[in-house]
């Protein structure tokens, strides 16, 4: 069944222009993507073992995606035996309903969260807030965009599109509202110290903690969380209830599979051999143990993933959300994440969004936001065939009649005209006659129909009074143009 994803209601052209018109966004996205892409390249170059692990990790992910259902059953059995409660959830409503009723049973009001793209995909915060629950994002970047009421623009750096001055302003506003001292300056140190202080109080007061999962190990019933800040450890170990919300695509078969893939998110994401915190949770607080939540709930979410299993796009489910494809994509580097209008941006987002939610959902993503340059597939540690998917998704849009009639007819006529030399030469001579209405200062500057957009930012030389073909035909004894 197709999943349900939130989207920016603005059309693509408006989203694109908004991004291109923001110098702060473009400068920040440029520096963040270049820095992360360079860090990844250096990390692999100086660490041959990382490449060996990458291949083993990719194979482990593919192996798991080939047998998801039995692995999920095993995972549920193991986690249940370890004392956790496991729930299979279809989509956004089922997940939100579960958390709301859990909060009601516990009498809980305050929730802390660590970063989870899945909960963004499920629009969970909005649903929980609507039920009267106070949800606090605790990853620094997520905290910033939550205060700004925005969505993440990069998987690893959700506030990558904002600068220090903007962040200082929203922190000061928050401090004034909450009656506490604001950050002492707009330097990174004081800004971080302010967030640490505010969020520390939330960690200690929260009654429920929500995290995602980077990996799930079926063999042992283990949830793996990876962060650099340490906030997921707080969320998982301070409140009395821990709720894990994870896609079914996170499952791995064995503990050894985890060992193969565990370093990849850090290596490909930020160029470290491991992130500062890699946390393995296999159950609620054990008898006699001083720490850990009283209750551990693990929600395994479909939201459009199952329909991809066993099909030509199944490798999309091996994505580990490292963001490496964002950082090298020439489109993402120009417009950043918000222009995509979806939870997931970059090459993987442009492919995965319509696959999860249906081909009519943000159809411009595979169509308009890829140059087929292949940088993404070179960067992807899981070797996901992103360029191939762009091409087949475009083909499906055409084959299934999802293109506008005008577009379809224009391309059909164009294709016919250019498919024989005679027709092509006839087209050129028509165009030469028509082009005088489209010229300024000796250059072609506009065009009717489908080509109009191309000329918005470019011009081109006009068709010559005599083309090479015509010149050749005039000189050739046979009087024929070369073919």
């Amino acid at each position: 069944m197709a999943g349900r994803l939130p989207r920016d209601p603005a059309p693509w052209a408006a989203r694109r222009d908004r991004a291109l018109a923001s110098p702060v966004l473009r400068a920040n996205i440029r520096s963040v993507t270049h820095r992360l892409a360079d860090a990844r390249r250096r990390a692999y170059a100086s660490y041959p073992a990382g490449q060996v692990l990458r291949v083993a990790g990719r194979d482990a992910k593919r192996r798991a995606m080939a047998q998801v259902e039995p692995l999920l059953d095993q995972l549920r059995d193991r986690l249940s035996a370890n004392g956790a409660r496991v729930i299979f959830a279809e989509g956004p409503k089922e997940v939100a309903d579960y958390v709301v009723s859990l909060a009601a049973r516990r009498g809980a009001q305050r929730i802390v969260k660590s970063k989870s793209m899945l909960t963004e995909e499920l629009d969970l915060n909005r649903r929980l807030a609507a039920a009267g629950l106070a949800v606090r994002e605790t990853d620094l970047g997520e905290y910033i965009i939550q205060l700004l009421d925005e969505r993440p623009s990069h998987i690893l750096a959700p506030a990558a599109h904002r600068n220090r001055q903007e962040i200082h302003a929203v922190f000061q506003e928050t401090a004034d509202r909450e009656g506490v001292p604001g950050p002492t300056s707009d330097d990174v140190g004081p800004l971080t110290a302010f967030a640490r202080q505010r969020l520390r109080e939330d960690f200690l007061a929260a009654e429920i903690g929500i995290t995602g999962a980077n990996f799930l190990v079926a063999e042992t019933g283990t949830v793996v969380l990876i962060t650099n800040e340490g906030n997921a450890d707080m969320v998982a170990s301070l409140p009395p209830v821990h709720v894990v919300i994870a896609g079914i695509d996170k499952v791995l078969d064995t503990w050894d599979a985890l060992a193969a893939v565990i370093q990849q998110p850090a290596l490909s994401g930020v160029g470290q051999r491991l992130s500062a915190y890699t946390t393995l949770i296999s159950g609620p607080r054990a008898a006699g143990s001083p720490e850990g939540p009283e209750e551990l709930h693990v929600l395994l979410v479909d939201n459009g993933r199952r329909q991809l299993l066993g099909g030509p796009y199944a490798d999309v489910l091996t994505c580990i959300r490292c963001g490496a494809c964002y950082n090298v994509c020439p489109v993402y580097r120009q417009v950043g994440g918000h222009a995509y209008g979806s939870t997931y941006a970059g090459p993987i987002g442009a492919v995965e969004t319509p696959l999860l939610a249906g081909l009519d959902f943000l159809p411009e993503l595979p169509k308009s936001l890829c140059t087929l340059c292949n940088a993404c597939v070179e960067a992807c540690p899981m070797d996901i065939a992103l360029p191939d998917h762009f091409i087949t998704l475009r083909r499906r849009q055409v084959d299934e009649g999802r293109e506008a009639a005008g577009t379809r007819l224009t391309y059909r006529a164009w294709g016919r005209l250019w498919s024989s030399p005679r027709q092509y030469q006839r087209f050129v001579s028509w165009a030469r006659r028509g082009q005088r209405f489209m010229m300024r200062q000796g250059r072609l500057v506009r065009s009717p129909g489908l080509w109009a957009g191309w000329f918005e930012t470019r011009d081109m030389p006009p068709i010559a009074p005599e083309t090479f073909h015509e010149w050749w035909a005039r000189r050739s004894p046979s009087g024929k143009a070369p073919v």
Partner: protein
Amino acid sequence: MSGPGGSPLRQAFRARWEGLGGQYWETAPGPGLTGTVAAAADALIDRVPGQKPPALWWPGPAWASLAWEAALPPDRWTVTAVTGREPLTVGGRPTDPTVLRGVAASAVLGVTGAAWAVADTGSVALTSAPGQGLWPSLLPPSHLIVLREAQVVATVADGLRRVRAEGPPPAMAKIISGPSSTADIEGQLWIGVHGPGRVGVVVVTGAD
């Protein structure tokens, strides 16, 4: 993995750990250990003259022989020392773990043991177990780890195999690779967000 054969692993661990921003001390087993721990603890905090900063001492049952009074002398520190397994005791009295959460949140230094460490990544792994809490590794701004050289393994996979060899995995295990950090504001690296900004390890050299 011991004696001279253990040294390359120890040296590799040290290089990676320090490369990540961790501080490192090593000492031969014996009477020098408490002095090294005391020096490490002092180096990990900013001491305000005349004050006795609060510290949470919780290296766990494996370090029962290490006397906290010698490492964190009471004339220089306000120490909550957790000993025992079930129940946990502080100063000989049984203690509710939730009290210790508050202690950890206000301490400037937490002292723990470790389960194993990884040379290849410069990481230290801690596991939850009866008698051993993980809060002192997370809530205070500084974290000091006491480690035996024999606990250093070559790769993350070796460490994870060690966990599996001991049976079902513990409720929580964490692999720490350097201080808490973020680059969420303009991509600038900043050390010390939610977890400790200063981490140090004291390695006791030798076979066991």
